[in-house]
């Protein structure tokens, strides 16, 4: 490239700083929007897919596949229809199948509380930044982001959010002791509270602990005798809001374990055959439960997202066309404004092609700068939005 040409083009752009800045800004934004959407969609797709790929199969109540995937993989929503521990037992006893039950109904300080087993940490390859996994009732493990944003660590406590503040007879919040904090994984696990399934059921009120019936409490009316002769607690008997060493033995469930609810089961088959057989067994639409492949659901979700993106791409194409037309108009007006300058350049010995290349270089430099800035901004935005995506997915 002719260095004199480049020098003159740069001098022109530098001299008309305001004009150059406005053009650069307009071009940068025009490039940034489609590039940004494209990059974010890609990031979104990659994250969504990687989580789905980590979980080969999912068991849940037959219904909306998207709801089940969003619930079990991304802890996004609460399912009203649930399956039981018995269903999990059935699956878990099959040969070549490893199944992890999951129950998510409650939140603590707005973060999802996930009831599961300690195998979840191994299968998701989650390691502990501090502390250890839950071993007793009332203990919990925090995701890295959650622990950091709430400023909590091992030894602190976390209270679950009340189910309904207007329902005094509903389940009571439970104070959990934090026994571990997970190392960051850049996934939704970073923003969740993990508890043992039993702790989760206690939060739901399916299990509870309270003072035992004594002659004194019977006399005070806290306990009464039903017509059948059973001893029944009145509303005056309050459940324990925290599980401690002293009261842990008082916690009990009024249902068989197999009847207790879970919301989904994460399944890791050891072979393609085990996977195929399982899928076949749950294929019948009349069955209340279904086994799905999360990747297929994510692909179908992404197809929908991509349809929206293609609509946006068309939109950006039209916007770019409009911006391009305006730019052409600006170029033509600029040529008109610079007619005298071009005349001088010609008088001094500049060829038409030289003058054309000079202007082309000016626009080329502007476009290049805009493209580079847009590209850089996309990277920065991607970095900044990564955190948001981590929370979302």
């Amino acid at each position, binding site marked *: 490239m002719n260095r004199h*040409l480049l020098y003159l083009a740069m001098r022109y752009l530098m001299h008309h700083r305001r004009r150059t800045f406005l053009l650069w800004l307009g071009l940068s934004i025009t490039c940034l929007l489609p590039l940004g959407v494209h990059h974010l969609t890609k990031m979104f797709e990659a994250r969504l897919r990687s989580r789905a790929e980590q979980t080969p199969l999912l068991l849940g109540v037959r219904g909306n596949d998207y709801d089940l995937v969003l619930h079990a993989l991304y802890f996004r929503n609460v399912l009203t229809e649930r399956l039981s521990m018995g269903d999990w037992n059935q699956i878990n006893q099959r040969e070549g199948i490893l199944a992890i039950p999951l129950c998510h109904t409650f939140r603590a300080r707005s973060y999802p509380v996930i009831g599961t087993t300690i195998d979840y940490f191994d299968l998701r390859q989650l390691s502990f930044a501090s502390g250890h996994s839950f071993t007793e009732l009332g203990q919990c493990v925090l995701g890295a982001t959650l622990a950091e944003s709430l400023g909590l660590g091992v030894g602190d406590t976390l209270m679950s959010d009340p189910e309904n503040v207007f329902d005094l007879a509903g389940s009571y919040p439970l104070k959990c002791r934090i026994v571990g904090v997970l190392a960051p994984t850049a996934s939704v696990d970073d923003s969740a509270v993990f508890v043992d399934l039993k702790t989760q059921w206690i939060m739901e009120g399916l299990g509870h602990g309270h003072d035992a019936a004594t002659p004194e409490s019977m006399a005070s009316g806290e306990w009464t005798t039903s017509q059948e002769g059973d001893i029944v607690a009145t509303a005056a008997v309050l459940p324990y809001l925290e599980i401690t060493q002293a009261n842990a033995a008082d916690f009990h469930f009024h249902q068989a374990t197999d009847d207790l609810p879970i919301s989904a089961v994460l399944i890791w088959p050891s072979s393609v055959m085990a996977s195929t057989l399982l899928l076949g067994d749950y294929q019948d639409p009349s069955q209340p439960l279904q086994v799905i492949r999360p990747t297929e659901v994510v692909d179908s979700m992404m197809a929908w997202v991509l349809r929206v993106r293609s609509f946006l791409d068309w939109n950006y194409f039209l916007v770019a066309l409009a911006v391009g037309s305006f730019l052409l108009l600006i170029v033509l007006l600029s040529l008109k404004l610079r007619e005298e300058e071009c005349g001088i*350049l010609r008088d*001094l010995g*500049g060829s038409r092609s030289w003058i054309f290349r000079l202007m082309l270089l000016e626009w080329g430099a502007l476009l290049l700068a805009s493209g580079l800035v847009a590209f850089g901004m996309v990277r920065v935005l991607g970095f900044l939005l990564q955190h948001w995506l981590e929370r979302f997915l």
Partner: protein
Amino acid sequence: MDIHINKLYFGWPASTFSLEIPHLKVASEDSLAVVGASGCGKTTFLRLLAGLILPDVGEIFLNGQDLKNLSETQRREFRQRHIGFIYQDFRLMDYLNMKDNILLPWRLARGRDPKDTLVRDRLYRLIESLGISHLMNRTLDQVSSGERQRVAIARALIMGPSLLLADEPTGNLDPENKLMVCKLLQDKAQEYGATLILVTHDQAIVDRFSHSVDFGTFQSNRTMEKEVG
């Protein structure tokens, strides 16, 4: 540079204006003042001499070279190497500082000919002799009209031309600057061994030239016969 014009006729398309010069000769290193009323073709004459436009009829020989026989590229290169232009309104680029304005013809010639060092030497000699060394980093709005014209003269001389074409170079200057710039032009033309053709309305300027042609008179008579030098 020898100038020889023979039976020249030029007319702008879609205009009644025409310029006829049956015979005009200007010897090398001589100078000529061109006077005449507005619209009589003085600027067109300079553009014809620079090869920016070609006559409809007739020939213009510069150093024996008929401009009509040169291609557009050759005429442009000829202009780059041999012709310096000075305008009434200076025509300096507002986005360049004074030094870059002076060097513009060299940059347009792609900086290959003449060599960097030669141009640098010439630049420093020129700005020194024109007294504009202190203006080199200034922009157009930081210099006066007289200073702008001196920068324009330096720009016209940077390639060492053998023909200087000045289109009313003193038109925008005060009387004191007018004579000073005129003398400067004549001195520089002499120093560079260049032929000077200067268009002016000013009788005081014409008086400083040993030769002049009145385009108005010649045009009204439809003839122009002149030998200078």
